[in-house]
């Protein structure tokens, strides 16, 4: 009961942060839950969301409509709580998200080279969010590394883990190399002004 209250409090704090994201993000969360936990898991997540006062039905989510980003973050937090997911599971959730995403399919035309993908990344961000921004903070082809910066995103630290997996997958789609690593080197939740990820291969 105490944990549930804590999740409810977190939800209330999250909804105070302004910003919307496309329904596709919540839909891909639902697909991952369904993949890992089946339909029962999906129902359990919906039930928990309703319990904490933020009911949602995954199949009714419209991919291109705007929803509060808080809702998307809450789905991750709820999944972590009810399924006992670890950081690795959340990272896997982020890693899987581009696999199902309609938006990723729409912007796949930018994925024919890493350079083009990086160039188009601000546009890619705008497809997903109506707040914040993304920028390439550094690209060293010789050293085989890219630094991606996210500005003005401050919902919850769980998303840092999610993004780690997410960016790794995007890199896996545009770099012909399977030994890709992604780490968060700066975090707005750890006193930095922005989030920064280093992708190396």
């Amino acid at each position, binding site marked *: 009961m105490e944990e549930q209250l804590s999740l409810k409090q977190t939800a209330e704090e999250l909804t105070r942060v302004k910003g919307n994201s496309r329904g596709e993000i919540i839909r891909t969360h639902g*697909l*991952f839950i369904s*993949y890992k936990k089946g339909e029962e898991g999906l129902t359990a997540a919906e039930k928990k969301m309703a319990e904490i006062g933020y009911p949602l039905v995954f199949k009714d989510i*419209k*991919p*291109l*409509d705007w929803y509060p980003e808080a809702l998307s973050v809450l789905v991750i937090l709820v999944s972590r709580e009810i399924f006992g997911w670890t950081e690795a599971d959340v990272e896997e959730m982020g890693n*899987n998200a581009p*696999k*199902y995403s*309609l938006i990723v*399919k729409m912007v*796949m*035309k930018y*994925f*024919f*080279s890493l350079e*083009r993908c990086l160039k188009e990344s601000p546009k890619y961000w705008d497809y997903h969010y109506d707040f914040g921004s993304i920028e390439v903070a550094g690209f060293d082809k010789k050293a085989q590394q890219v630094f991606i910066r996210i500005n003005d995103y401050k919902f919850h630290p769980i998303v840092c883990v999610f993004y780690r997996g997410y960016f790794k*997958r995007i890199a*896996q*789609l*545009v*770099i*012909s190399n*399977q030994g890709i690593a992604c780490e968060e080197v700066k975090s707005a939740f750890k006193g930095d002004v922005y989030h920064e990820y280093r992708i190396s291969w």
Partner: protein
Amino acid sequence: MNIESAGKMNPEEIIKQKDEDIKRLNESLGDLEFYLRDLSALIPIPICSLSPFDIIVDANNAFQKISEYSLAETTGTPIDVLFLEKKELKDILKRVVIENTARDQEVTLISKSGRKTPVSLSASLRRDQEGNILGYFLAFLDISERKEFSSKLELQVAERTKELQEKIKELEKINKLTVGRELKMVDLKKEIKGLRRKLEMQEKKDVAINQAAKNIAE
């Protein structure tokens, strides 16, 4: 919204109208996505799309069924992982870049459980309007039944050929025997003819001797 009506609108109305247009477009795009998803789910032919780096980015239900991998498992995987003939597959894709398509290339798909399925692969290249390569579409036809039928047929042909060869050998043997007998008969006939001639000569001789003896006695 047309230009004429837009001209009569105030900025707030124009923004509202544009928002509605965007909403409608988004709905249409969503509907289109559902339509494509349903259509793709219905198609019984395994289909997948690849990034320019030969990585699977999407696959339909039929592909998931034949490969025994879910979409989450296949997406992001290099395509050659699923095939026995890795080099041949790379060569096919290289050819597709030059020729835009490839048709009926035989390769073997290895499923999650290790089952090997011979498939006929067709591929086409995806380019954007600027000519950049966006990836490939691949379609597979399960030809295991055709291959099985073909190998059964080959086996049957081989068995029939063996049977025929045995029959030919037998016939040759019979033929040899027959020819041998015929030749023997010809020889025998010649011998009979010779003997008959000898006999006739002997008879003639005997007649002459008898006649001579008769003449002497007289």
